[in-house]
C-alpha cells in the first residue's frame, strides 16, 4: 500500500530495514519495528522505547478508533519518539485526528491522500484540547492573553 509522510505529496518508499513484526513474533526477538493489533496492550513495549524506530498501528475499519488511544499512550505516556504509522483503512478525513494523536506516517489507498496530507494541518488553526502534538488549546491561549493583558496594564 502507498506510504505517505508529511513533506512529500507523492508516496515514499518504505525502508526495507524496518519491516514491522506482529507483537507475538517481535516479543520473541525484539527488533526496531513492531506492528500492534488494536487490541494489544502496550506494557510489553515499555522497556524498549530506546530500541524501537517504527511502531505500526492498525485501523481494521476507519470507524474503529482504538488505535488513536494506543497512539496517545505511546506518545504521551511511554514517551515514544520514533515513527508511528497508521495502517489499514486510513482515509484523508482522519488526518487532523491522526496527526494530533502523534501519527507521522500513513498507509493509504485513497486517491488524493498525498495532497490532503499536505493541507491537513491547515484545516484547523484552533484546537480545543491538548493532545500528543503539543498544540496549545484555545483555553491556554486565552489564559496567556489574559495574563499578558494584565501585565501590560500593570506596567502601564
Amino acid at each position, binding site marked *: 500500500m502507498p506510504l505517505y509522510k508529511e513533506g512529500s505529496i507523492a508516496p515514499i518508499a518504505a525502508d526495507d530495514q524496518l519491516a514491522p513484526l506482529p507483537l507475538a513474533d517481535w516479543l520473541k526477538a525484539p527488533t526496531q519495528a513492531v506492528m500492534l493489533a488494536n487490541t494489544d496492550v502496550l506494557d510489553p513495549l515499555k522497556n524498549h522505547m530506546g530500541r524501537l524506530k517504527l511502531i505500526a498501528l492498525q485501523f481494521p475499519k*476507519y*470507524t*474503529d*478508533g*482504538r488505535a*488513536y*488511544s*494506543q497512539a*496517545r499512550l505511546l506518545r504521551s*505516556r511511554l514517551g515514544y519518539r520514533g515513527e508511528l504509522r497508521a495502517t489499514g483503512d486510513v*482515509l484523508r*478525513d482522519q488526518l*487532523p*485526528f*491522526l496527526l*494530533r*494523536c502523534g501519527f507521522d506516517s500513513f498507509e493509504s489507498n485513497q*486517491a*488524493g491522500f498525498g495532497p490532503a496530507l499536505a493541507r491537513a494541518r491547515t*484545516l*484547523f*488553526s*484552533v*484546537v*480545543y*484540547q*491538548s*493532545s500528543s502534538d503539543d498544540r496549545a488549546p*484555545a*483555553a*491556554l*491561549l*486565552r*489564559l496567556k492573553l*489574559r495574563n499578558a493583558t494584565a501585565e501590560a496594564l500593570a506596567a502601564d
Partner: protein
Amino acid sequence: MPDTHFYRYDDYDRTLLSERVEQFRDQVRRRLAGELTEEQFKPLRLTNGLYLQLHAYMLRIAIPYGTLSSRQLRKLAEIARKYDRGYGHFTTRQNLQLNWIKLEDAPDAIAALAEVDMHAIQTSGNVIRNTTADHFAGAAADEIEDPRVWCEIIRQWSTLHPEFSFLPRKFKIAITGSPNDRAAVRVHDVGLRLWRNPEGQVGFEVIVGGGLGRTPIIGKTIREFLPKDELLAYLEAVLRVYNRYGRRDNIYKARIKILVHEIGVEKMREEVEAEFVQNKDTSLRLDPQTIEAISSQFAPPALSHRSAVVGAVEALKLENRDFALWLKSNTAPHRMAGYRIVTASLKPAGAPPGDASSAQMEGVADIADAYSQGEVRVSHEQNLVLPHVAVEDLPAVYAALERLGFAEANVGKITDIIACPGLDYCALANARSIPVAQSISNHFASLAKQHDIGDLKIKISGCINACGHHHVGHIGILGVDKNGVELYQISLGGDVDFGKTSLGDIIGPAVGADRVVEAVDALVATYLERRDEGERFVDTYRRLGVEPFKERVYATV
C-alpha cells in the same frame, strides 16, 4: 436587545466553527462528485448533524445546555424557513431537528448557524454528543451551582477530540447542579451531579453506564466526589477505557453501559481510576482562571426588584380559570422572589409534541426580549422555557403565549407527552408515535380534568431504541411490529425525576393503535378511583402494583 448571560464565543470559537464549515463543505462536494462513497461519507455527515431519514436528510442542531438567546432562536426560525418547511422539532436531547434538508444546502445551513455561534457538530455519530443540562439552570431556586459552566468546558474539550472521534458508539453526558435532578443523569453514559460535601466543597458525583435504548440500565456511581478542576482528567480516563475496551463486534452491545455491565462496576472503577491517576495533575487539570473566566459569563442577569405578590395577577387568577391553572403547572419557583420560570408548552391539544413553526419561534424570541432577559431554554420534555419572568409580567406573557398557541396549562400533565418521531419520519421505526400522542392529547384535552389527574408523564417510542424515553414514563408506550401490524406495548411505573430513577414494568400483551387511548383511559380511571390523598399516578401504582391497572386495561381493551 439584552446582553446574553451565558457563554459568549470569542475569535477562537468562531475560527474553529468557520473552519469546520469549510471542511464539511469540501466533504459534501467530494460526496456529490462521487469521490467519497456513502459508507465513507456517513460518519462525516453524522458528526455534522446530518442524518438520513425515511424521506429526506435531517439536520440535528445542537443547543448546548439548552440555552438560546432570542437572536439565536430567530436565526433558527430563519434557517427552518429557508432550508426546510418553515418548522422545526425540539427534541428530548436539547437539539432542534429540521426534517427536510437537502444535502446540497446543508453546508449553507450550517454556515448560517455559525453566524449566531451555533453548530451541529457531534449531534450524531459515535462521538461525544451535545452535553445536556437542567433546563432551569441558573434560575432554579434549588440550585447549588450552575451546571452549564461545566457543560461549556466539556463542549470545548469534546469538540473534535482527536482521540475520541471514532468511539464504539455514541456517548452522552448530562449534568445537574441541583438536588432535584431535572437532567436525568442516571440514564446517560456519564451523569454528573454537583453536590456539596460535608467539608463544604462542591464537586461531582460521577455516574457511569446508564442508558435507555433496547437495554435500559440505571447508571452506577463510580466516584462519589470528584474535585471540579479534575473533571476533564477524569472524563478523559473514562473515555479512554471505553474507547479501548468497549465492544465493537455488535452495535447493540457497544454502549458503555454494556461494558460496565460485563466487567462489573468495580473493575470499571479500577480501570478508570488507574487511568485517572496518570491524567491528574497534568495539563488536563483546569486552571482556576479558566474556570473563573467561563463561570463569570454565566453570571445571572442583574434582575431588578419586583414584587412577589401583584394585585393584577391575583385578580386575573380569580377571573380566568385557565390562567390560574397555567400559573400552577407552567411556572416554577425562581431563585429570586418576584420572578418565576415560565414553561411555554409545545404540546397544545392534538399537536405533534415539540414542533414549532418559524413564526412561533420568532414569537417566543419576542416574548423573551420583552420579558425574559432575551433568554430561552429548551427542556428535555420538548418544551421551551422563559427563565426570568417577573411575576408582574405573567399576565402579559400568558396572553402572548396564548396567541402563539403555547399557553396550554399542561406542563407535567397527561398531555405533556414526549414522543419520538416514529414511523412518520424515522427509518428504524416499528410504529407511529406522533399520531398516538395526538389522539391521547385530544382525548384528555380538558384542562380541568388534566389538573384533577395531576402529574402524569406519558412517553412514547416508535421502536425499541427508546428515543421517546418510554422506559421512564409513568406510562410508557412502545411501538412494536407484529407481522406488519403496528401494536403498542404499555409499561407503568417508570420515573426519572428528582433522582428517583426507575424503569417501567410491562403490563401485558401489546394493544392495537385504535385501543391505546382506551387503555390509557382505563389506567387513569383506576388511578382516580384508587388514589389516596395527594398521591400522584406513579405513587398509586407503586402502592398497588400492576394488578388492578392491568385488569382494567384488558377488561376494556
